[in-house]
């Protein structure tokens, strides 16, 4: 049974990240996603210090806040400070992450979060959580509930916000001219990324979150030319890696999160080489 919860957790995180990741890479904001996933650390710690618990709600608020702060700082350093884009991203996230680590070590006794956990998460702990029941007849670990709800919210956001996301991603100038605020959609997306990152931290850790945000979307990008299909394939790639990663970790007796990231890498490599439309080796064959 515990395998089931672990794999399910991975799948839920994978779907949320896989969907958001498509828009991130299409907007050429993959590294901002990476930055946010690191920079929310101080938000989590502060939320913990304020609320005194590892409850999800204050954490989400802390994370979303720092996600917005990160987005804002990157923009400000770049536009108002005159700093080039890549350096704005680099300086912002390293600074915020450093502050987060310092906060953790200052209040080390109080906080259950430590560096290891933040970076790697320990998805296996999901299996050890007590089961709670928010719906009649259904019991699941807390983490699963939270991830499940976030995933549903993200799916809803993408369904209802599809036109806005599509428009502001493909042609921001045109969007402005018909009166659509690109800024609003940008912050909306980044907030969603912050929330998803934090919710996934405890189980899959920061590094895996980045891999889940980027790799499935990049893989799907090479497989299809249609955005709706890309979204579905991205989620699917993530789910496959969840299964594959779990069994790989069991076999090697290693971290499940890392194994999932490894499987993502394998999936991407296969598609990169053999995808019918874009695979390198397929293209060479055609010549």
């Amino acid at each position, binding site marked *: 049974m515990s395998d089931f919860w672990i794999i399910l957790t991975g799948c839920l995180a994978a779907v949320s990240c896989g969907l958001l990741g498509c828009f991130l890479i*299409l907007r050429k904001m993959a590294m901002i996603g990476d930055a946010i996933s690191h920079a929310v650390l101080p938000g989590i710690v502060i939320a913990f210090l304020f609320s005194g618990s590892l409850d999800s709600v204050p954490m989400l608020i802390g994370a979303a806040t720092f996600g917005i702060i990160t987005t804002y700082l990157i923009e400000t350093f770049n536009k108002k400070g005159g700093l080039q884009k890549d350096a704005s991203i680099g300086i912002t996230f390293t600074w915020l992450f450093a502050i987060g680590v310092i906060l953790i070590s200052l209040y080390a006794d109080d906080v259950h979060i430590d560096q290891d956990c933040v970076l790697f998460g320990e998805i296996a702990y999901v299996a050890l959580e007590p089961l709670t029941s928010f719906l009649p007849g259904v019991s699941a670990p807390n983490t699963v509930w939270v991830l499940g709800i976030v995933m549903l919210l993200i799916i809803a956001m993408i369904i*209802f*916000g599809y*036109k*806005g996301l*599509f*428009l502001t*991603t*493909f*042609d921001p*100038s*045109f969007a*402005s*001219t*018909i*009166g*659509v605020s690109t800024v609003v959609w940008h912050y909306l997306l980044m907030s969603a990324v912050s929330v998803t990152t934090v919710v996934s931290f405890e189980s899959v850790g920061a590094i895996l979150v980045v891999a889940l945000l980027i790799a499935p979307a990049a893989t799907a*990008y090479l497989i*299809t*030319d*249609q*955005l709706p*299909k*890309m979204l579905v394939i991205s989620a699917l790639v993530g789910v496959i890696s969840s299964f594959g990663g779990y069994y790989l970790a069991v076999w090697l007796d290693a971290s499940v999160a890392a194994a999932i990231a490894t499987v993502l890498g394998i999936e991407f490599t296969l598609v990169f080489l053999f995808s019918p439309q874009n695979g390198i080796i397929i293209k060479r064959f055609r010549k």
Partner: protein
Amino acid sequence: MNIQIDKPVLEVHDLTVSYDKKPVLWDIDFTIPYGNLVGIIGPNGAGKSTLIKAIMNLVPKGSGYVKLYNDTLDNVRHKISYVPQRESVDWDFPASVLDVVLMGRYGKSGLLNRLSKKDKEIAYESLKRVNMLDFANRQISQLSGGQQQRTFLARALAQEADLYLMDEPFAGVDAATERSIVDLLLEMRKEGKTIIVVHHDLQSAIDYFDWTLLLNTRLVASGPTEKVFTTELLQETYGGKLTLLSKIGDLLKEKQFPVRENK
């Protein structure tokens, strides 16, 4: 030579736009009459794209104002269509030609509503007008330059606007496509639309446009094409930047001086 129109569709007054604190458009003043095919001509770096972007509020103004239909942009957006340069978009994006053209209906339909059958009909009609109906389901990454341009045009048509602002619609397009686009624009003009086009080629400008703006950081001329295409005016437009003006621009940037005192 700056001919003023009494009831213009577009009025630009004392417009200055800076890039990185240095003015790239200086005190631009002109009016455009209804129902004309207008060309904006000038050398590279003259500020032609910037002018259109400033009219559409895509870049901030250092001074002056713009009136469309004697009103502000926000009140008349539904009447105006902006066609950006082809390179401003990533054509690797996973979308079909129809997807892009349907974007033209977003303004009227709103972002949260489903597109109606009528919206789709209008999109197909637009594609037909640009001869791209067969390509409706083609992925945009598979299009040639001319086909990409026509997709943008179809999107613009789908907006059902009255005033069209196009940034270099003929750039990198083969002769046949260019001819067919011009024919389309002339058709639109017959329907009473006003079309303003940023254009890079002097030769064809004389054939295409009723009204021409000659631009080189400052407005050299604005008026009916035959009146504006004189040797003197063309020489002034293409004769290089005004040195003193450029120096003053540099000084404004160095001192971080505002373009207008009271700003």
